[in-house]
């Protein structure tokens, strides 16, 4: 007589437990599916509270029957080890599975199956899903802001040129490698600034002048982030070194600078640059809005970068400093050739985090009236011809940012692994 203990599944009655388990599990899932999507309730004869929980109960019972230790079936063992180790785990797993079933089909419907992408006007959005026509029509604006359509090739050209200059650093012959850091910290910003000033801003060489108020969209996000990144890095390095210096004036002024910028929110800094800063300049001088914003964000991020680099400097063993000094290196030589290269390798994830935070902070420039992606989104949302499509806009902008930030964080993780020099 084979003993079957329903409360303790074992692999002696494998087929029985497997069939029982599958039966209950599928029953639970089907119950849930029919409740929500087919609008029929197969357990409606039960009182309301129990009725609500029947999918959960059935599925958990099913998983209970699956929980056979050492069943010998590889797939079953894998599943058990991962999601079915105890009743509590089984309940959680079932809840997650049910949530996925609940949320995924309507989401996919809205995103893809019922969505419209062909057409040019609001009337082309006939389905109940997302209206990607809206994104398609406004795509130029989201990318380039209010920049005149005919001149948008200038932005493309400039970006490609800057990328080319950045990539050129990888192809220099070895004897010029020493000058790479000089190239990146000094030459590249100057070249990019000249490119942007003459090509995107225009005004000479036959190119029409486009004021910075008209720049916008994703291209503006990149421009602001790029310049803030390039300038906040050397400034942050100087501040970090200053904070660790022995000269009291330098040390305390660095500390006050860093703590000040770290203690205030970016939005007040931007308010200050938009509203207060013009008062501090001589009468008649007018600094362009975009330059003011880039300066504000640079100073702000430099403080955070300084703290990150300081962490790296502190983590270096004293032996490095002593050894460099014993070779007769002065302060600057020691830092440039021995300390900073090692410290920077240590803090790559921290710096990548700061850069990521910078990119995620760029939408705040709407307070000074510059419209990057999120700002253009709000503008498009209010256009009378396209009311009611705010959700599509948010999904679009969210996706763009998500792709950028996620790729950057993965890249920084790769960098960290690549530069990991174990001591």
């Amino acid at each position: 007589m084979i003993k079957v203990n329903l409360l303790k599944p074992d692999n002696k009655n494998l087929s029985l437990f497997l069939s029982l388990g599958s039966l209950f599990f599928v029953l639970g899932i089907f119950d849930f599916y029919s409740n929500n999507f087919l609008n029929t309730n197969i357990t409606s004869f039960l009182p309301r509270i129990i009725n609500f929980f029947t999918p959960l109960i059935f599925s958990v019972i099913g998983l209970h029957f699956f929980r056979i230790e050492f069943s010998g079936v590889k797939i079953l063992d894998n599943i058990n080890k991962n999601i079915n180790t105890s009743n509590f785990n089984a309940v959680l797993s079932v809840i997650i599975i049910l949530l996925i079933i609940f949320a995924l089909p309507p989401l996919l419907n809205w995103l893809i199956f019922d969505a419209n992408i062909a057409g040019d006007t609001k009337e082309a959005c006939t389905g109940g899903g997302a209206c990607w026509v809206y994104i398609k029509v406004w795509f130029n604006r989201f990318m380039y802001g209010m920049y005149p359509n005919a001149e948008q090739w200038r932005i493309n050209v400039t970006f490609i040129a800057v990328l080319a200059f950045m990539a050129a650093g990888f192809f220099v012959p070895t004897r010029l490698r020493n000058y790479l850091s000089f190239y990146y910290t000094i030459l590249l910003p100057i070249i990019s600034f000249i490119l942007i000033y003459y090509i995107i801003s225009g005004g000479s060489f036959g190119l029409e002048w486009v004021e910075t108020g008209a720049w916008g969209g994703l291209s503006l996000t990149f421009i602001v982030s790029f310049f803030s990144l390039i300038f906040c890095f050397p400034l942050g390095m100087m501040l970090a070194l200053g904070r660790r210096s022995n000269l009291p004036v330098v040390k305390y002024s660095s500390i006050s600078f860093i703590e000040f910028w770290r203690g205030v929110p970016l939005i007040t800094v931007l308010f200050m640059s938009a509203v207060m800063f013009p008062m501090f300049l001589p009468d008649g001088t007018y600094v362009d809005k975009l330059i003011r914003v880039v300066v504000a964000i640079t100073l702000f991020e430099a403080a955070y970068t300084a703290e990150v680099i300081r962490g790296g400097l502190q983590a270096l063993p004293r032996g490095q400093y002593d050894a460099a000094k014993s070779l007769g290196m002065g302060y600057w030589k020691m830092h440039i050739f021995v300390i900073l290269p090692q410290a920077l390798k240590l803090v790559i994830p921290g710096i990548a985090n700061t850069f990521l935070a910078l990119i995620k902070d760029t939408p705040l420039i709407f307070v000074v009236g510059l419209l990057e992606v999120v700002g253009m989104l709000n503008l498009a949302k209010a256009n009378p011809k396209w009311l009611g499509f705010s959700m599509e806009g948010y999904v679009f902008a969210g996706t763009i940012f998500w792709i950028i930030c996620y790729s950057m964080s993965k890249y920084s993780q790769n960098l960290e692994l690549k530069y990991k020099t174990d001591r």
Partner: protein
Amino acid sequence: MFKYLKQLTSLVAMVAVLFAFTTETMAAKKSKTLKNTQKKGFVRCGVSQGLPGFSNADAAGNWTGVDVDVCRAVAAAVLGDANKVKFTPLSAKERFTALTSGEIDILSRNTTWTLSRDADIGLTFVGVNFYDGQGFMVRKDSGITSTSQFKNGISACTNIGTTTELNMRDFFNSKGISYEPVAFEKADEVVAAYDSGRCDTYTTDKSGLAAQRTKMTNPNDHIVLPETISKEPLGPVVRQGDAVWEDIVRWSLNVMIEAEEYGINSTNADSMKTSDNPQIKRLVGSEGELGAAFGLDNDWSLRIIKQVGNYGESYKRNIADTGILPDRGPNQIWTKGGLLYVPPAR
């Protein structure tokens, strides 16, 4: 000793640069807005972020509106071409600081003329180009036809930092009604909040209500209540401290209004040069030396009338013909019963 020469030289260089910078700026103080404008070749005009009828940009980037026309009149007078204007859309928060900081030279953004704004923040109002009042907008299906039907607990949407916010409080207090103020920074957000049902009523200048209604999902579902709860004289603003520029802007607006008073418009302006009325002749520049008072040539007023039109023409093409406010109300010449009474240009 020579080791420190490098540091000493940088010290001296820094001091010299800063010194030169400050002396240079002291010298630059003497230039006026007019000189700058003529040097730049365009008038810098601050406008709203999109208010139909007052300052609104179309898809190609062309700005139209009665506020826009004020700036164009100044450009016609000072630079000879009404199209030499650069428009800067400003939010309510930065409009005054953009003016005081020098980012723009005229703020033509349907700004209410109040004492505190005139006296306290370094600005000067140079006239009224639209007499308006604050009102309320509600949904037609609410059945409300008068502000006396407002009940306790009503939620009202408006813009922050405006006279509207202050007047709204005075109004509800005087009626003893408790209300919930929901104030956003951007006009578009206010409209969206009211349209979606977050607020029961939307309050701002009645011209603004009429204009923003065109931006709602169903403009015909909303009505503007008849009561006017405050005076809102809207007009252009300039920086304090440049008296000649003030006068130029003031009289550019006055010329537009006086031209309509005397029946001069953009089509008949040239023919009016030989009119019998000496005031008309002064307005079209064929008599008198009015331009010299500002440092302009004598055709300044003729250019305004010909390129921008008189007040009535501006009103008609921007506000009446677009259906926003067909009835001119108080914005009519005083001889026809309105409030537009300007000092004579002589």
